[in-house]
């Protein structure tokens, strides 16, 4: 179990030894995003931009134009709201190869409270043309996907995280990047989860198995482009879907899945998400209980989805 932010900083450091095609930009939050690991090892490839995210994002596009890949790092609230217009107009619209990496996602931020808890970033970023959105479930997936993200040209929003997460994957997992990954197969319902909710989805699936409800569990780390065929297959084969995200219930994973299901293969969908309210201070686990993001909540949602089957 490792902090996603520390994992991110260490992965960047390891990657830097193998390739010299990227630099890391920071807005004075290197301790929070984990990039301080990289700064120590590669000070010449670390660009301090100060607490000035708007300049950092547009400036990154200029760096990309000069032929280097900028990895822009800050908290998700700033990446997805304060500097979003720069991400749209300076990076996505002119198609610059900038990788935006945001930590501090959702209630998982914990004690810092609502100003620092991005509950809207998936909805915001996935609505921008040409922008990809990826949210790995654990440090192992994060490590596996990073070279792939750097090898593929184009604007990208990467959600890293903050808290320690139990490993979902073992070290030898082979990832098919861009696809929804089947973590458990099942026949009665499909649980689709992203980020910190993936390990909770697995706990819920185990509990449901004991009740005789067989669940497929999908890791939906690729939020955009989304693996539509996996969503349609789940709707057709299991007939009920529950989405799980540490994000507002509007426009995130649940919204994206519903768009596909409604259009292609109608089936009941239940959302385990934040119920359109702001977060608060507290330990992540306590907040997850208060806001209904625990395995028990997923279990209840699955029962409901199954009972609604067409």
């Amino acid at each position, binding site marked *: 179990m490792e902090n996603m932010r520390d994992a991110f900083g260490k992965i960047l450091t390891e990657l830097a030894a193998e390739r010299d095609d990227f*630099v890391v930009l920071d807005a004075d939050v290197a301790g929070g995003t984990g990039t301080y690991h990289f700064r120590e090892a590669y000070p010449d490839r670390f*660009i301090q*931009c*100060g607490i*000035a995210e*708007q*300049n950092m*994002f*547009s*400036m*990154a*596009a*200029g*760096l*990309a*134009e*000069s*032929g*280097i890949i*900028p990895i822009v790092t800050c908290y998700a609230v700033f990446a997805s709201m304060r500097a979003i*217009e*720069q991400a749209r*107009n*300076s990076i996505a*619209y*002119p*198609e610059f190869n900038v990788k935006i990496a945001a930590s501090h996602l959702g209630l998982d931020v914990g004690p810092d409270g609502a100003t620092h808890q991005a509950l809207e970033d998936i909805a915001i970023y996935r609505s921008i043309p040409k922008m990809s959105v990826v949210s790995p479930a654990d440090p192992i997936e994060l490590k596996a996907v990073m070279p792939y993200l750097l090898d593929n040209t184009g604007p990208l929003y990467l959600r890293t995280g903050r808290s320690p997460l139990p490993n979902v994957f073992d070290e030898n997992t082979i990832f098919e990047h861009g696809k929804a990954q089947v973590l458990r197969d099942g026949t009665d319902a499909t649980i689709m989860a992203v980020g910190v909710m993936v390990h909770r989805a697995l706990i819920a699936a185990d509990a449901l198995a004991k009740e005789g409800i067989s669940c497929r569990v999908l890791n939906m780390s690729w939020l955009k482009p989304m693996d539509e065929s996996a969503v349609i297959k789940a709707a057709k084969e299991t007939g009920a879907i529950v989405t799980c995200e540490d994000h507002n219930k509007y426009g995130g994973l649940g919204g994206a899945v519903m768009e596909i299901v409604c259009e292609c293969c109608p089936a009941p969908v239940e959302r385990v998400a934040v119920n359109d309210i702001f977060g608060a201070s507290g330990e992540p686990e306590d907040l997850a209980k208060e806001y209904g993001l625990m395995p028990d909540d997923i279990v209840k949602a699955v029962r409901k989805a199954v009972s609604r089957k067409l």
Partner: protein
Amino acid sequence: MSVSKYDELEKFAAELRKSIIIMNCHAGSGHPGGSLSCVEIISWLYCNEMNYSTENMNDPERDRFILSKGHSCLSLYAALAEKGFFSKEAFKTLRHAGGILQGHPDRLKTPGVEFNSGSLGQGFSFALGCALGAKRAGRKNRTYALLGDGELNEGQIWEGCMFGAHQRLDNMVGIVDYNKFQSDDLNTNITAIEPMNDKFKAFGWHVIEIDGHNFREIENAFTRARAMSGKPTMIIAHTIKGKGISYMENVPKWHGSLCPTGKERECAMRECGCEELI
């Protein structure tokens, strides 16, 4: 520099003014006032200052011009057409569906355009990134960003100023097209833009003030910017909004987005030396 060279620059500038009016009339909208005020600065950059042409437009070592005040793109398009990046035929499709000339610059649609500006403040930061990228790569090329005076209202500009000074980007020149007007009114009736010179100095920039329509002063300023080491330069160019078209000069409504019609169009065409819309 010889007198004839200045004459050539004056001729180039006159061509740009003509193209601006032609484009504006074809489009039926656009921003003539701020396009006309920066004609001499853009003429100097494309004719004398920059190492930039259709031959080296994809070379990483080229100089870069970023029109951060993207709404003044009529002036940029006029210079690019003059330099052969595309035909003046394209003027007819400005702001029309399917055309290569967008209402604000788009680098993916228009040959020679470096950045999709139009959202104020962003082109300046982009230019700082180009300048930093060049330094990091050990390249000798320079980056130029043209800012509007109203654009200085944007907080992002001052974020960029701190960053540029901190990074000692002496390969970067900003130019403020200080025509004194922004969209709605005089700058001074909108917000406290002055003292502009002291503001940039306090942010760590080398500041030069000139008459932005005088080629001798423009030449001198860019020469001094080139000689500066360790600091980025900001040239405050005092200009006249709508310069060259008598009834547009210093009249806020010609900020745009509109185009002259009837007698006003006839007058504009006459004053820029254009006999008919091509």
